[in-house]
Every structure is written in structure tokens, then in C-alpha cells.
């Protein structure tokens, strides 16, 4: 036997095929390691290592092809994957777009990491528990007062990364992140709100599909006062969606969250009050919705302004009114019940709350013993959540002695 026989064997060795499952097994090994380390650290009362993967893993997936089993799917939400650069988006008036048309996308991952002076946000996409190759057609826009970036992801049917929104709050520039109502069921939209003006760059990447938003503090930026032409505040729901849709043909509305977690549509933002008022007058002729102009600067949270409330005295003098709600202790409120929004009144009784619906004139009474009450308050208004076995009602009203009165009869969390 000679040396060549051994070299032939080396050729065979070099030709050993690398199975696509190798990545999956390596990932599984790493995940097991992480779990073990976390367990050990917990036992030692040390800080738990935050799970985070790197480009190295992403590159591996790219070079060896992406073919993952469903058992691997759970990793998709936990690990950011950085794909190959397709393009750096060029923004025009704060707007840009990218991606290619696709459908059935799940926005599966969202995370934050630091790199070369940028605080980055990474968004990953998958389909049927496999990382998606290309980003679906998307639009992104940056706006001020408050500073936000709104994403519109076409072809997206689900948003499992929503569970991981808190990961973004690690990013020092991110103040809030929230999904906004979209009446198109093949699209998901969400807003990232920043805690100051930012310099940004957005990259589209593929194999696997990813969007990376790089953020830096915009130190030179001078904050400007602006006048927001907006609607009143509503619960997340169809009312808000329809309102936006009625404005979208002629304007470039954006949906924003207010100080109380309600939402409104901003039709436009103007540099002077005169311009905003002028536009308001124009719009008032053609639109059946109450609009207002709000002055805002920088990161100031938009106010929660709920629909106009009828004065109590008017109610009492109304001869048609023969309900309990005509009582002086009734508070005018905006009510959201299972996605339906209506105006009405709530009366505090000794054993329960009575809710009067202005639209159908009906009254429903809820005994304190059957409901759970949770309060949240803003500067100018309050929100009371009423939870019973089969209903979830949100009541919004202007700030008053409501809770003081309510507190006499029941406990509010």
C-alpha cells in the first residue's frame, strides 16, 4: 500500500457532504449551553445572561441555506439574524420604502443591539416558522413632535414579535413601541417612538430578510414647536381605522398614541397655528368628525382628548330623559365596549355602576361585586377599565371627582 491510498481517503474526507441540519444542531447546542449557563447563573444569584446571537450565526445560515424544523421555530423570536445588505434606504421628506411583494409574512423578531456608535433595531421576518429570504414590500416614515418612525409591512399576516416589544426598550433612544390599527388584513403597522430627535439610517437586508434601523442622537437638531391638526382620542379599534381611511386619500395621516394610551389620527403638522387653523376650517366643511389643533414640542406626549361631553345640567333639563343617568351624579363619558365606541353616561350607585348609552338609550347596571375596576389617569382625563366575566369596558372621561365618589362605594385598583 502506498501513500496515494491515504491521499485518496483524504479526498473522500474533503468530500464529506455537510448536511443542512448542521446549523440546526449547532444552534441547538448553543441554546442548550445558554439555558445551562442561565440556570447556573440563577443558582449563583448572578445576573442572567441575556440571550443574544451574532452575525456569525446569521452568516452560517446564509451560507448553508435556511432549512429549519418546527422545533427550531422558537428560536426565531429570540435571536436576531442579520442578513446581507440589499440597500441603505434613501429618505425623501422623511419617507422611504423597500422590499418586494410577498404574502403570509410573520414579523417574527425584533431586538436591539449596539454597533459602531449606532444603537440598532433589528426586525426579522419568517414564513411557516422559517426565516424569510426577502423583506416584504414595506414603507417607513420618520416624523417629529413626537419623534416617531412608522413601519408599514406589506404581506404581513401576523406579528409574533409583538411579545418582544420590551426588548426594544433596551435601546437608549426608544421610548415606546406600539402596533397601530390597520384595516387591511395583509398589512401590519407599528410605531417606534423615540425619546428625542434622532439621526437614523435604515438598511434592508436579505438571506435572511431583515430591516436594521441605526440610531444616533441628533445633537444639532433644534426643537420646533408645531401645531398638530388631529382628531380626538379613541380606543385601538375600527373607529380609529375608518377615520384614518377617510382621510388617507387627501392627506398623509399618522396614528399616534396619546398620554393615556388611546389613539388619534394626526392629519397634518404645521409650523404656525394660522396654517393649522386654516386647514381645520377647510376640513370642517367636508368632514363629519370633530377635529382640533394641538400645540406640541419635541417629545411632549399628545394629550388625551376624548369626544365632547354633554353637560350634566342639560341632561337633567332634558324632558325625554327618564333614566337613572339623568341623576346629578352621572358623569358624561366615552365608552368602548368590545371594540364598539359610543358616548354615554356613567352613574355611581351605592351597589354598582349604571351605564347609559346615548345612542340606543339603553342602561346597563353592573354590580360592584361582579366587576373589577382599574383606573388610569392622564393630565386632563381618566380611563376606567371595567372587567366582568364576559365583558371588558373602557370608560374615558374628563378629570373630575369621579374616583373620589366611586371610592366611597368600592375599591378601584
Amino acid at each position: 500500500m502506498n501513500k496515494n491510498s491515504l491521499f485518496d481517503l483524504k479526498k473522500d474526507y474533503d468530500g464529506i457532504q455537510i448536511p443542512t441540519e448542521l446549523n440546526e444542531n449547532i444552534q441547538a447546542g448553543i441554546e442548550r449551553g445558554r439555558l445551562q449557563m442561565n440556570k447556573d447563573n440563577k443558582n449563583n444569584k448572578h445576573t442572567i445572561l441575556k440571550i443574544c446571537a451574532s452575525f456569525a450565526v446569521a452568516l452560517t445560515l446564509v451560507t448553508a441555506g435556511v432549512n429549519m424544523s418546527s422545533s427550531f421555530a422558537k428560536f426565531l423570536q429570540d435571536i436576531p439574524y442579520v442578513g446581507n445588505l440589499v440597500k441603505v434606504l434613501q429618505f425623501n421628506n422623511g419617507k422611504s420604502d423597500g422590499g418586494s411583494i410577498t404574502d403570509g409574512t410573520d414579523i417574527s423578531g425584533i431586538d436591539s443591539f449596539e454597533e459602531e456608535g449606532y444603537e440598532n433595531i433589528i426586525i426579522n421576518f419568517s414564513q411557516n416558522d422559517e426565516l424569510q429570504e426577502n423583506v416584504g414590500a414595506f414603507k417607513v416614515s420618520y416624523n417629529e413632535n413626537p419623534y416617531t418612525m412608522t413601519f408599514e409591512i406589506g404581506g404581513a399576516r401576523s406579528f409574533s414579535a409583538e411579545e418582544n416589544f420590551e426588548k426594544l426598550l433596551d435601546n437608549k433612544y426608544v421610548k415606546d413601541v406600539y402596533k397601530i390599527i390597520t384595516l387591511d388584513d395583509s398589512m401590519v403597522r407599528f410605531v417606534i417612538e423615540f425619546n428625542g430627535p434622532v439621526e437614523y439610517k435604515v438598511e434592508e437586508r436579505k438571506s435572511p430578510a431583515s430591516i436594521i434601523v441605526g440610531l444616533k442622537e441628533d445633537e444639532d437638531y433644534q426643537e420646533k414647536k408645531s401645531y398638530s391638526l388631529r382628531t380626538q382620542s379613541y380606543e385601538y379599534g375600527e373607529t380609529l381605522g375608518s377615520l384614518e381611511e377617510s382621510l388617507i386619500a387627501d392627506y398623509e395621516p399618522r396614528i399616534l398614541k396619546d398620554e393615556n394610551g388611546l389613539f388619534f389620527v394626526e392629519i397634518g403638522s404645521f409650523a404656525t397655528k394660522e396654517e393649522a387653523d386654516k386647514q381645520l376650517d377647510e376640513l370642517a366643511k367636508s368632514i363629519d368628525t370633530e377635529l382640533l389643533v394641538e400645540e406640541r414640542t419635541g417629545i411632549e406626549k399628545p394629550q388625551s382628548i376624548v369626544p365632547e361631553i354633554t353637560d350634566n345640567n342639560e341632561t337633567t333639563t332634558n324632558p325625554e330623559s327618564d333614566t337613572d343617568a339623568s341623576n346629578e351624579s352621572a358623569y358624561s363619558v366615552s365608552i368602548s365596549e368590545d371594540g364598539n365606541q359610543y358616548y354615554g353616561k356613567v352613574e355611581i350607585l351605592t351597589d354598582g355602576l349604571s351605564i347609559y348609552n346615548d345612542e340606543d338609550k339603553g342602561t346597563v347596571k353592573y354590580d360592584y361585586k361582579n366587576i373589577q375596576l382599574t383606573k388610569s389617569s392622564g393630565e386632563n382625563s381618566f380611563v376606567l377599565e371595567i372587567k366582568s366575566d364576559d365583558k371588558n369596558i373602557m370608560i374615558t372621561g374628563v378629570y373630575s371627582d369621579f374616583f373620589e365618589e366611586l371610592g366611597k362605594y368600592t375599591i378601584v385598583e
Partner: protein
Amino acid sequence: MTFGLRKKSYVKEREDKFLSLINENQEKLYKIAYSYVKNKEDALDIVQESVYKAYISYHKIQKAQYEKTWLTRILINTSIDFINKNRKIVSIDMSYIENMSGSSNENLDAKLIVREALDKLTEKQKTIIILRFFEDMKLEEIANILELPISTVKTTLYRTLKEMKIDLKE
């Protein structure tokens, strides 16, 4: 394209380094494991187990230049453990046999003889052959991986080749 992620903390930095190390060496790890067990499933299991073991002890590594040696050692030890535990069961992939089908009959015979000779070797001998001839490692590296003196590696190598009746001078 380069896109190195710089993590905020030492832990993240270490994790990055570890992932790069695995990324660079994963194919080698698989091939070595496959050479021991000759089937895909077992080789994948060995790689997974090795990556796990490496992950949980990576923080103990003091010097970066020994990382590859250390990782290869883990893989080899894991492979040998696996073989010892599963000695009674030998499962050979069809692809292992198919890999040889590209050769002429004459070569095939010669290869089969070498393979048989290789299979008869002890695990230590086999490891030295794989690392020296298939992975083109220097004797010093092999000695580091196996934690043996170079002289021992050298002696073992020549004795092994003699047993396999391979004459390197030809």
C-alpha cells in the same frame, strides 16, 4: 460584507467570539465526527454535544490562540465517548459507501483496504491519522490537542502507518 456586532458588555463580546469560533470550525467539526461514526445522525449529535460542552466552558479559556485546539479536543473526546458508549451498534450511512463509488475498481479496492486498516486502529491512532493527514495539522498541534508530548505523537504515528502498511516514502 462585514457586520461585526460590538456588544455592550464583556459577556456579549465573549458570546460573539464563541459564535465566530464555531462558525469558522463547524465543517471541520462535522467531518471529524463523521470520520469516527460514519453516519450523519450520530455525527450531528456529536457536534451538538460538543458545541454545548464548549459553550458552557468557553469562559474558562484564557488565551484565544488555543481556542481551536481546545474546541477540536472537545469534539474528539466527545466522539470517542460516543463510540465507547455505542460500541455495539455500528450504523454506516449509505453515503459513506457511495462516496467511494466515483473511484475505479482498482482504487476502490485500495481504499477499502486502507479503510479497513483505519477501522482497526485504536481511537488515539485514528485521531492522529485524521488530524495529520485529513486536517493537515502539524504534529505540534496534534500533540496539543491530545495533550501528549510530540515525541509520543510522532512514535504513535509512525507505528500506526507501519501497522496500516503505508509507506510514505513511495
